[in-house]
């Protein structure tokens, strides 16, 4: 192997994970996982240098072929399978991986290495003929579209012409092979090594796809960055009784409790767990069928959490009793879990308070601190539906939008109940404090509008029949003006007014806020205390209060560079006002953020700017304290 190409193609075991510029984000993460000693399906990375040369010359450098051969041979030795071997075929995935997140590029080709000969080998290995042929169908669709640029609709039509039985899938394969040949003028390569070369070149070429170029212009990304290609062995969770696939978390992502948590599906492959089409089991199922793999998984969870110093999730496959870690990353979590994990990690000595603060987004605490229906109240549950927009609301029933507007105009808290919503309901939805519908789910118009207005909503309530004169929840019938309570977080509807209480006080939140106070210099004022304003590091008399983006822009245009902008975002225009104010604050102008009643809608996508001060209403002061500390600890961000 020539020395010039040695660094162009590197194995996961033999690279510097810090070299993201050449390995790409995905590649660097795999190298990092190997460095941690995790059992990652073997593979190699073709660096961004090669991409640049490919784009310059219009073809792969010749020496790359030999380097790929050598690395492929290593993978084959490790797994005891060979690319193109009809009896024990090695299959690989080919993915793009740029140093920065890059939409518009070719993403992934799975199961490369399948051909007319090897598909039978896969069928025998998995004892699942339809599965093997389905993999072949998917490969041909991906290959035809991504590598040969054939219209996806035509490919899908050819793929779905027949049944899901092996015979039908065989017919699909034949139509797809014919279609690829006809449309691209060349047959699908039965030579599996040629498949790989074509796929690698297609990834590189996709760096210059119109959509990728457009994104680079938009995001200001250098055209010369290039992408790396990650080639990795496929592993299978459907090879017999000691196989399966799952996802595991180092701590419970819902509560933050310090015990591993996850889903496992025996005898399943890849997306089955994620797709949610199957009832998945717990990690105990993994322990039962593959105790050694489970022990390795437990170790792996420990290792990744220590490496990231944060709660992590691992996607994994168990193939014939052996654990393979496919991906590990910092895990998503609820607001409650975020607070618990951050404070416990301070106690465990894993992170310091400053870092803990940066891990809590104000919107996480916001939902945590929002009033909830009193869990101890004696109340009558009358309906259950889809939790379409979070939060709780209580009030009186309105069955038509005009009734909702009239009642709201009189100062009544209103819950609008409709069979479903039409555009002429929107005014009523705005007037109401909460929304209930009989039909539709999380993506219904009602749900989209409710979330857009930050109104709690329960949609698609089972058994609810609504007319303009009454709403029948099974045996309970409600009319205009009757009392009702809804919980949009849990999807529950109650008769009567259930008292709303602050959620059970969480000492962890208090701990965190104390840390916030000792880590911020940005002053926090409460609105009821105007003396604080007067003493602030700005001229309160010259303050310009802005509620919309237009207000901010007008204030900036006025040219008064000494004025202080006070951002008090209104409900509908909040995010735009905050975005404009962030610009001003990042430009060094004094900007004060006022945390008021409409904060929830505005704060959801709040960037952290170097605010001059934060002003809060009393009940919002926790959000203000966190916001002030986070802005300072994390530094300016956003646009």
């Amino acid at each position, binding site marked *: 192997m020539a020395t010039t190409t040695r660094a162009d193609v590197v194995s996961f075991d033999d690279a510097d994970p810090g070299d993201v510029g050449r390995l790409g984000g995905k590649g660097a993460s795999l190298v990092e996982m190997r460095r941690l000693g995790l059992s990652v399906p073997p593979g190699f990375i073709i660096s961004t240098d090669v991409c640049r040369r490919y784009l310059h010359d219009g073809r792969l450098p010749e020496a790359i072929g030999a380097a790929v051969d050598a690395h492929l041979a290593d993978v084959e030795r490790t797994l005891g399978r060979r690319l193109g071997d009809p009896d024990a075929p090695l299959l690989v995935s080919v993915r793009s991986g740029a140093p920065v*997140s*890059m*939409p*518009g590029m070719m993403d992934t080709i799975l199961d490369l290495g399948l051909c007319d000969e090897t598909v039978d080998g896969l069928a025998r290995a998995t004892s699942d003929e339809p599965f093997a042929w389905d993999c072949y169908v998917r490969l041909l669709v991906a290959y035809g579209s991504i590598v040969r640029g054939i219209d996806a609709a035509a490919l899908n039509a050819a793929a779905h012409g027949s049944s899901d039985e092996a015979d039908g899938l065989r017919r699909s394969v034949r139509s797809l092979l014919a279609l690829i040949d006809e449309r691209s003028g060349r047959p699908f390569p039965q030579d599996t090594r040629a498949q790989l070369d074509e796929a690698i070149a297609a990834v590189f070429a996709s760096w210059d796809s119109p*959509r990728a170029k*457009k*994104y680079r212009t*938009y*995001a200001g990304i250098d055209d010369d960055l290039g992408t790396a290609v990650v080639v990795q062995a496929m592993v299978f969770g459907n090879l017999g009784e000691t196989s399966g696939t799952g996802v595991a978390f180092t701590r419970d992502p819902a509560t933050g409790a310090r015990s591993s948590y996850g889903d496992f599906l025996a005898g399943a492959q890849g997306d089955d767990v994620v797709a949610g089409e199957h009832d998945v089991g717990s990690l105990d199922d993994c322990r039962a069928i593959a105790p050694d793999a489970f022990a390795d998984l437990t170790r792996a969870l420990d290792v990744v959490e220590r490496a990231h110093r944060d709660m992590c999730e691992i996607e994994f496959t168990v193939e014939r009793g052996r654990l393979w870690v496919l991906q590990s990353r910092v895990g998503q979590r609820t607001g409650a879990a975020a607070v618990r994990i951050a404070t416990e990690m301070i106690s465990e000595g894993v992170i310091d308070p400053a870092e803990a603060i940066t891990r809590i987004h104000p919107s996480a605490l916001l939902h945590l601190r929002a009033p909830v229906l009193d869990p101890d109240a004696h109340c009558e549950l009358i309906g259950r539906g889809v939790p379409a927009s979070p939060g709780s609301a209580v009030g009186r029933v309105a069955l038509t*939008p*005009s009734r909702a*507007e*009239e009642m*709201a*105009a009189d100062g009544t808290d209103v819950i609008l109940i409709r*069979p*479903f*919503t*039409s*555009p*002429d*309901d*929107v*005014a*009523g*939805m*705005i*007037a109401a404090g909460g929304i209930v*519908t009989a*039909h*539709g*789910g*999380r*993506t*219904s*118009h*009602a*749900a*989209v*509008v409710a*979330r*857009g*207005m930050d109104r709690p909503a329960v949609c698609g309530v089972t058994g609810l029949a609504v007319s303009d004169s009454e709403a029948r929840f099974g045996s309970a019938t409600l009319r205009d003006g009757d009392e009702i309570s809804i919980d949009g977080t849990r999807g529950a509807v109650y008769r009567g007014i259930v008292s709303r209480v602050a959620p059970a006080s969480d000492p962890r939140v208090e701990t965190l806020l104390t840390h916030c106070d000792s880590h911020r210099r940005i002053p926090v004022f409460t609105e009821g205390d105007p003396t604080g304003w007067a003493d602030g590091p700005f001229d309160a008399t010259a303050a310009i209060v802005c509620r919309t*983006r237009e207000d901010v822009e007008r204030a900036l245009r006025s040219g008064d560079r000494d004025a202080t902008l006070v951002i008090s975002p209104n409900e*509908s*225009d909040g*995010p*735009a006002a905050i*975005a404009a104010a962030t610009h001003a604050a990042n430009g060094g102008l004094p900007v004060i953020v006022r945390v008021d009643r409409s904060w929830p809608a505005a704060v959801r*996508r*709040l*960037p952290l700017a170097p605010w001059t001060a934060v002003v809060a209403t009393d009940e919002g002061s926790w959000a203000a304290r966190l916001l002030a500390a986070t802005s300072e600890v994390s530094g300016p*961000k*956003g646009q």
Partner: protein
Amino acid sequence: MTFDVLHALRLKGIVAIEALAELVERPIDALQAELDRLAEEGLVRLRETPRLAGWSLTPEGHTRHGQEITGHRTPEIVSSLTPVYEGFLRLNDRVKALSTSWQQLTADDQAGRWEAVEELGEVHEEAAAILIAAAGVLPRFRSYERRLATALEQLRAGDERFFTGVTVDSFHTVWFECHEDLIQTLGRDRVQEGSF
């Protein structure tokens, strides 16, 4: 113009005269005269709530609109608009799913936000073809195409309210209205076809 005014009010619930003038593409003076006449007939009224002010239908106006739209529903219109509507429904799920995922994106996910807007642009291209076909049957559908294009332009210019914002003519707002218009024009039933 009478039907156009009644129809616009039926779709939007409550509309300020300036916005109504844009929807029915008439000068404000002529529209004012028409609204006054319709108010005298008891079909429309001017309403003011703390949050909104504008014209809306009276119950009699609702009834009249129902009669007129049924009268306009000729077999020719139904048969030529039905395939158009089926195309619209196929896109509808994508728009709703895209709107939902947009609302769940985080502030720092620049690539995700860009991708969502791009995908919306793709949906718009398909939608434009459908709405232009619809405009061949009933010219008012052309205005939805124009309003969707404007929402997309605003969004691309960086005003993120124009994706799912409720109080602006966002893509979702216009889409929602267009769906309702098709449903009413064809006399469909949301419950029966399960599109909410």
